[in-house]
Each structure stands twice: as C-alpha cells, then as structure tokens.
C-alpha cells in the first residue's frame, strides 16, 4: 500500500497505542518513527526526513497545538494528521489547519486510509 520511502512519525504518549500504530504502518510497508513527547518528536524531526506526522492532541507536557505550530513553521510540507480520542469535529476546532483528523476509536484500517489520502 505505502511506498518504502514514506516515513511516518507517530507522536503519542500512550505506549500501547504507539505499538498498535507502529505495527499497523510497518505491516502496510511504511517506515515508522515514534516519540512519546514533544521533545523526542522534535529530535527525530530535525535528524530525519519525515513525510507524515500522526500527532496526538492531548499530551501531558506540551500540548499538541504548540507542537503543531512548531512543525508547520519548521517544515510546512510535512503532512500532519491530528489524532485523539475526542471526536473529529472537536479536534477540528482545536487545530483548524491540520491535513486530516483521526478519531483513535475508529481503528487502524481508517488510519491507513487517511495516511494514504494524505500522501497523494
């Protein structure tokens, strides 16, 4: 499904969620990186070429909005898909300019669709 040079960065503080998405993307053929907080995420972003960021809105320290703005400033070509347990319309209100929005309870299949859609 995905090309091998598409790298996805998963930013989520919940290790088990991270794990599910990592396996989902790997099985679909993507390259995957992951971070549990904003600092780790930035470290990865500056060192490697990232195409898509799956960004959890609510994280303990720096919230998703701040990190989103930083990513946009850093490299506007990076496609950011905002994710959360909140429903999509609520997410849209919080971060209006994201590429797409993902409600985690929709499951991995929907996630893959959104990623495929984002990289076209």
């Amino acid at each position, binding site marked *: 499904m995905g090309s091998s040079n598409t790298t996805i960065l998963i930013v989520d503080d919940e290790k088990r*969620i991270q794990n599910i998405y990592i396996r989902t993307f790997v099985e679909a053929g993507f390259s995957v990186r992951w971070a549990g907080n904003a600092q780790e995420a930035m470290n990865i972003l500056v060192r490697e070429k990232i195409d898509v960021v799956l960004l959890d809105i609510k994280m303990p320290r720096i919230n998703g909005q701040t990190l989103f703005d930083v990513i946009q400033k850093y490299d506007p070509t990076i496609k950011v898909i905002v994710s959360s*347990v909140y429903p999509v319309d609520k997410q849209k209100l919080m971060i209006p300019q994201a590429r797409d929005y993902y409600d985690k309870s929709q499951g991995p299949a929907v996630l893959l669709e959104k990623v495929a859609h984002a990289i076209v």
Partner: protein
Amino acid sequence: MKFKKFDVKFDIKFNSIKFEITVLYTLILGVVLLLFSGVLYLMSNAFFQAIDNELKLKAQQIDHTIRAYEDAFGENPNALGMAVQKTVSMRGENPFELRTRRISQDWLAQVKSFDLNKDYVAFATQSGKTIFWSENLREELRDIFLEDIQFPRQSNGRVTFRTITYNKKNIRLINRLFVDKKGGVYIIQVGVAQGPITRMLRNWLFSVAISIPIILFLTNFVGKILASRILAPVQEITRLARTITSQDLSTRIKAKNFDVEMKDLVDAFNDMISRLEGSFKHVEEFSYHAAHELKTPLTIIKGESELILRKDRPPEEYKKALQVVLEESGRMLKTIEDLLLLTKLDYQPSIFKFTAFDFKEFLTEIFEQSRTLAARKDVRMTMDAPSGQFMIHADRLHLRRLFFNIIDNAVKFTPDGGRVDITMTCTGQRIMTVIADTGPGIAEQDLSRIFERFFRTDNSELGNGLGLNIAQTIAKLHHGQITVESKLGEGSAFTINLPLVNLILS
C-alpha cells in the same frame, strides 16, 4: 363564559404580602382608630353630661330656695318677687332676716359649693321678659338667653338645654319651668361659661374625626410604597431565578440599595448559584474526564483486535493481543471502581464507618503487606515508629486504601534497588506518617497538580491519575491532609497528617 369573565376581574390575592401590608394593615389601623375615637367620644359625652347634670342641680336648688323664701315671706303680696330677688342676688340682706336666716345660710353655702356666683342666673316671665338677674348678666346676653324659649306643656320642673356662643365663649344654658303657688309660669335660667378646656375638647373631637380618614389614606399609600420597596428585590430574584438554567448559571442578582434582610437573601441566593455552578462544572469535568479515561483502554482493545485480525498470525501474537485485551479491561474496571469511590466520597461521606483503633498497629500491618509487593521489585522497605499506642478514630477500610495508594505509588515509581522508608511521628494532637522513596521525583511545576483528578505526569501507563486524589479525599474526610515534598531526580516524600484521639504511653 360569564363566570370566567367575572373570575378574571375579581383577582384579589388574599395571601399576598402587598395585601397584608396595605389593605389589612390599614383595616386594622382603621378599626383601632375607630374604637379609640369611640372611647373619646363617650368620654367627652360624659364630660358634657356632667356639666348638664350640674346645671340641672343648680336650677333645682334655685327652684327650691325661691320656694323656701316665698314660704318664709308668707302672706306678703310681693313674696315671690322678694324670694326671687333674694335668691338670684345671692346676698343676705333683708328686713325679715330672722325668718330667712336659715334659708340664707343654706343657700349661700350652696352658692359657695357650686360656685354659682360665677354663673349667669336669670328669672324670666313666660312672655319673655327677664325680671330678675345676676349682676354679671348684661342686657345683650339677657336677650340672647330669652331667644327661642319654648315650653309646650306647663309642668313644673321641665328643663331644656341650649348652647350659646357669645363673645367667643360658649355658654351652656338650662331653662327650668317654674310654676308659682298662684299658678304663674316663670322660667329659671342658669348659664355656665364653658371654659377653654371644653372648647378645646370640642375642637379636638372635630380634628380627630377629620384626621382619621386622612391617616388611613396616608397609611394605605405609604403601605403600598413600602410593600413595593420590600418586594422589589423579591420580584427581581424571581425574575432572575427564571433565567437561570443548567446551561446558564452565570447571572447574579446585584444587590443595589436593598434592606439588610433582603441583602442577606440576595447574598445567600447568589452564593447558592455559585455553589451550584461549581457543582455543575465539577460534574461536567468529571464525566468528561471519566469518558476520556475509559475511551483510551477501549481504543487500545479495539485497535489491537482489529490489527491482529487483519491476517493470520502465529499463536504468540494472538496470545499477546489477548494479554493486552485482558490488561486493558482490568485497567478500565479499576478506573470505574475508582470513579465510583470518588463519587461516593464526594456525595455520601456517610459510607464511612469510624471506629477507634491503634494507628501504629494498623501501619505495621500495611507495612508487612507492602513489603511482599516491594520484594518482587527488589525495593527495600523500612518502617520507624515511636513506642506506645496511638489511638485514632477512622474508617479502617478507607484508611487502608489511602495508605496503599501512596505506598503502591512509591513502590511502582521506584526503580529496582531503590528504597521506600516509612516514618511515623507524633506531635501534639497529630500523627505524621512520611513515606519517602528514591524514585525519579516530581517536577516542580507538577507538584501542585499531582493531587488533581486525572492528572498524570509523563509516565502514563502507571495509573489512571485518580489514586492520589482518592488518597487526599479520604485524608480530608478524616480531618487530615497529605502534603508532598519532591525534587526531580531526588525522590519524593509524602506526609500524611491525621488527628490523634488519645495517646497511651507504653
């Protein structure tokens, strides 16, 4: 239809405050005033009655004295005239002194006791001519006395009364019919000047009569104003209360220049709304967080299951997946139980069953049980307590929960090889228990928030953010509290402060 119209017009609210203050109050006042003036009227009536009675008596005495003198003068053709003269002049000289001396003495005594020489006395014929009169009676007044004299029947002793106004004075006049032995009809007149008091009384009665309706009118008017003023805040509160809904609790009543009692009502009302607002917010946040907390484990279960089922996998992967499902289910159950406990603690503190027991023995028991847990992680635990018995009043079950929550946290966050030390001390009426660990510590900006509901630091898998809050809530319900000291990289020390009931030294 007709009945309905009638109903609508006749809209007097009998149990309204406005009605009570104005109409009822005015009515009561009116009745009281009426009774009062009734009493006044009766009293003044009695007063005037007394004056008339005295006049009657005076006229009667004059009558008798004249007759007495007349008899004394016997066959004298001028007997009546002389008798009247002697009586009216109220003096004592007469050629027939011996015979009349007694009568004179009596008469003069009476004149003195009645103060008759201050009164106007006249003796007139029926045809309207005054033939004898007291010195103080001038012609003008004599003529006035004679006006309107009428006696329909000629019976001796008949009296009538009149009130004359002369020279700004009121004179009360009595006319008494005097029928002579020889059948001549005459009139005895006695007039009494009514002093300033009686005049005042008359005027006063008049003023009272006039002022009663004025007073009642004013009372009603003032009453209406007062009622409006008093009721204005009540109406304001009613109006505002209607606008407050569970969606909009922001309105408050502004206490303008209300009376003190109303201000109390307004303040109490505003406070209540604030408390309600707080409660609603609390519940809103709580349900929001609760839903969120439960959604995460469910998301994991769904995600894991969906992913695994996408294709055939080796049995180990299925096992791992089911393991995840099992653990996350457990996590949800724990969260739900914790939430239920918090709700009970918030709204039904009566679930606590307080008993008295020895705190040191209790703590020791907890220590022993925690040690086994810590041993699995190679975390060393110690306990230090003073000697003696330390009785406390507490709910043993929930206090256990409190201490286990804190100790479990300490053990969970302390890496292998670390230690958790429990120190118990007693100062004054408080027992302090310190649970110190050599874990990663808590960042300064998080310190103030760790007791918040659902608050977690970065290590998110290790709990649902409710444990410390539950511990703190239990502590507060025991009239105690939990404080924490910590530095990143240097571990944390939680101090649980509880009240001591009594101290028994061993």
